[in-house]
């Protein structure tokens, strides 16, 4: 019982407690609210950094609380858990800055920031969970706390989007619950273990193991927006831009993908999944989603909708990487958690800036926008090019490892998928860049706001620039020991293979 035991709990509390206080703050207390937000973030970052160093030196952080007979509420900071925690807490910081610029001063901001922090709490909880029941708990809290954010605007449209989101995710949650309970009845444990724990029952309950795996994939697939369960994601773009960033890059979608990683590696184990002949179907579904998402993105004029379908496609890279079943591909997949995160958040914040500063929502309105808002557009372009997979931006690394891993595992067909999707990515991003940089701007923008010093509010401008910078250096300095890829290598060595 030393302090290390409680650090995972502290991480959770350092965003949860500010959230509770923020809920009760009156609308006017801007400064206090901002202070609380930032305080929570810095506390979280501090603890996360502490644990990063600790885990690097093989320190264990495990917190337990009895929940049910034989089942604990337990949090554990392993390498993989920290990877996701680090991603979400850093992006939380950036998104919060952005959200303060975007929403502070508009109505109901206490509610907004409260639920925003709650979302992050849940995401960090998802990351740190050491067993399936804890995972499930945070996963559902995440589902719920994202709901008020989606319908934040309180319009009829957002209410419908929120209900659709909820319908999908709760149904997914129900499948997940069924899978978890079923698994528990069979194995009597839910603790994540390297190489999985299902091997104990797979002989006896072959069919049940397959069914449970399917339930898990379907359950997580809803949040990870696997085809055909992605329907809620494009609709949810009615939410304010920071929420979209949160949904697409930081929390919700990522939690689904992360769940699939956990299930494949630490519940079933690669070998069992392969034994059950479930890897290839998973890879196929991921591939279909990749192509389908890109195709749909091609035909959207609404910028955020196009980005949303792009997410549908991109998140499946992670799943594809997991499903190829080789350490190299897995590296590609897992590192994409971060790479997709920083790139997509850049894109969404860029889109948010266009909407907020110029009232531009549609791609057809973006002619010459690069001349009006050059910095934002530079960031946007870096994100877009990264998505396509242009070196040396982060997205390229992902694709490189995925392709390499596919060859490694003898799944050559994956290369075609990668090539095809890259082409499609180019087809839906390059026209935007072309319009923005090379066409002449219109006489007037739909709803322009003028800022004297910079092209837009500073708090809106800085975050996308930072994340764009991240996407660049994650690609450039991939070989350094502190790059995401190196950490993923550590994860794979320690926990998976």
């Amino acid at each position: 019982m030393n302090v290390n035991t409680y650090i995972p709990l502290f991480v959770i509390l350092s965003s949860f407690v500010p959230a509770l206080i923020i809920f009760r703050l009156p609308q006017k207390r801007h400064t206090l609210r901002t202070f609380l937000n930032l305080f929570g973030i810095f506390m979280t970052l501090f603890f996360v950094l502490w644990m990063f160093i600790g885990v690097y030196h093989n320190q264990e952080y495990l917190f337990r609380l009895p929940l049910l007979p034989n089942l604990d509420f337990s949090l554990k900071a392993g390498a993989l858990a920290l990877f996701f925690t680090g991603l979400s807490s850093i992006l939380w910081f950036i998104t919060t800055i952005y959200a303060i610029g975007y929403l502070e001063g508009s109505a109901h901001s206490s509610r907004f920031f409260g639920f925003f922090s709650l979302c992050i709490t849940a995401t960090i909880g998802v990351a740190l969970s050491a067993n399936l029941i804890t995972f499930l708990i945070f996963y559902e809290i995440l589902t719920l706390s994202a709901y008020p954010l989606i319908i934040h605007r309180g319009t009829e449209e957002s209410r419908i989007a929120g209900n659709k989101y909820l319908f999908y995710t709760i149904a997914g949650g129900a499948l997940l619950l069924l899978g978890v309970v079923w698994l528990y009845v069979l194995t009597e444990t839910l603790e994540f273990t390297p190489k999985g724990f299902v091997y104990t029952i797979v002989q006896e309950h072959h069919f049940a193991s397959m069914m449970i795996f399917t339930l898990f994939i379907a359950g997580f697939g809803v949040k990870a927006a696997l085809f055909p369960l992605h329907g809620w994601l494009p609709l949810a773009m009615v939410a304010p831009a920071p929420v979209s960033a949160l949904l697409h890059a930081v929390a919700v979608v990522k939690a689904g993908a992360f769940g699939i990683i956990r299930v494949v590696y630490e519940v079933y184990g690669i070998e069992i999944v392969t034994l059950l002949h479930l890897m290839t179907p998973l890879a196929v579904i991921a591939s279909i989603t990749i192509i389908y998402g890109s195709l749909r993105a091609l035909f959207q004029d609404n910028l955020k909708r196009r980005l949303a379908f792009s997410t549908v496609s991109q998140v499946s890279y992670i799943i594809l990487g997991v499903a190829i079943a080789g350490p190299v591909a897995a590296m590609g997949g897992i590192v994409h958690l971060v790479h997709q995160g920083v790139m997509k958040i850049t894109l969404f914040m860029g889109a948010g800036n266009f909407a907020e500063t110029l009232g531009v929502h549609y791609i057809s309105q973006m002619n010459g926008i690069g001349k009006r808002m050059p910095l934002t557009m530079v960031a946007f372009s870096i994100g877009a090019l990264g998505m396509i997979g242009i070196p040396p931006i982060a997205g390229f690394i992902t694709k490189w490892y995925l392709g390499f891993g596919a060859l490694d595992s003898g799944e050559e067909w994956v290369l075609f998928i990668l090539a095809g999707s890259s082409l499609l990515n180019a087809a839906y991003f390059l026209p935007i860049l072309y319009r923005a940089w090379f066409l002449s701007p219109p006489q007037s923008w739909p709803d322009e706001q003028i800022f004297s010093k910079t092209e837009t509010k500073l708090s809106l401008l800085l975050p996308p620039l930072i994340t764009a910078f991240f996407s660049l250096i994650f690609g450039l300095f991939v070989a350094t020991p502190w790059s995401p890829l190196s950490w993923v290598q550590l994860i794979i060595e320690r926990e998976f293979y």
Partner: protein
Amino acid sequence: MIEVFLILLPFFGGILSFIIPKFNKVIGLGTFVLTLFFVFGLGLQLLDKGSYYHFIGGWDAPLGINLYVDGLSLVMLGLTSVMGLSLSIYAKKYFICKQSLWFWTIWLFMIAGLNALFLSQDIFNFYVTLELIGLSSVALTALSDTKEALTGAMRYLLITLLGSLFYLLGVALLYHGFGSVDIVILSKKIESIPVAWAALGLMSIGLLLKSALFPFHFWLPLAHSSAPAPISAILSAVIIKASLYIQLRLWSSLFIPLGADLYFEVLFAFFGSLAVIWGSIKALVQTRLKMLIAYSTVAQVGYLFIAFSLALGGISIAWSALVYLILSHALAKSAMFLVAGNLLHFHGHDRIIDLDRIAQRLPLSTTAFALAGVSIIGLPLSGGFIGKWFLLEASITKSNWVITCTILLGGLLATGYVFKVLGFTFTKTAFSQETKNISLSMELIPLSLAIMAIALGFFATPLFSLMEIGNPFFIIRVQP
């Protein structure tokens, strides 16, 4: 000896508030605070001594009436007194002076009846307590003084009388078949002869009528939705569970040894599932909030009987599921009804589509509703989740996939109706509505009840060990 005061105190308080109506609020609240203390003391004593009997009048059964305290009765008594105190604080603000003149007396007598019921071990005594509870809840329902409330109360009265008569007929048969009305003595004497089976059928019908299991639910929505808010809350939270509690006692000591479980298992599961589906769908299509909540109770009763059925099927974890569902539903549902009461007061109506930005204007009430909804749906981490988890565990252990699917589907439908309401709390209506102020305590009480429903999720382990004092579900099977 402490247990006796749980019955005497509310009676005493009731009479006192009848004689001195001037101070009825103070008397009422004081009584509830004291009762809560006594329940606490009872819990300590139980932990110390284990379960025990109290022979009233010094006459042991069969001649006299025995009281019996074990973990199950303690949990139910605790629930009653917590609900009693919080609803009293709410009611203090809710009832305006004319109604409150008689409210407190009836209310305290009802609580006395409930406590007496949870302590009793005598099937005729159960009948008298049932009547006491029934009549007082009818009288309280009618306090709303609207046409709906009166009609609902009347229908409720007829049903509760009918149920009692069926039950009493069963008591008569058991008495003449086996010569006692004490459960323990009966459980030793009972054997599989027609009269036992007839009694089983009659008593079950009577109690099912009272606990409103589908298809006997027809009286519930109107009565529960039209009663004053705190009364709706206690009706859904405790009253319908009182008759379920009697079922529990009867089955675990009398009817399972008969071997009746094999038939009734299927029956309860069937009607329970129908109740879940039907109640949820009906809740989903309601346009008025209180009606929606009342239909949700119909669905939740279905869950209780699904758990009951699984427990009869020999899955011991289903007993825990049942008790947990009872507790969490009680807390969550009462929070919902109180929120509905607040909204009715705030807007003067409870049409769901015209809730008009409640999320911003009454954030505490909305939070209470949302948290209660989380527990009703069974999302983690809440009391409802724990109950549902055990329920799923039991049904999967039994490989009963129909029930498993029903449970999940019911959860989805519940999400549907809870978030149907929550969605409209964010939107704005086209026309402006007049609003009235709501006192803080009327907002805080539902919130704290909802928080308790959530908090139940964290205390599963200690609660289970408390519940199992005296091993209430220890069942000896006499014959296969």
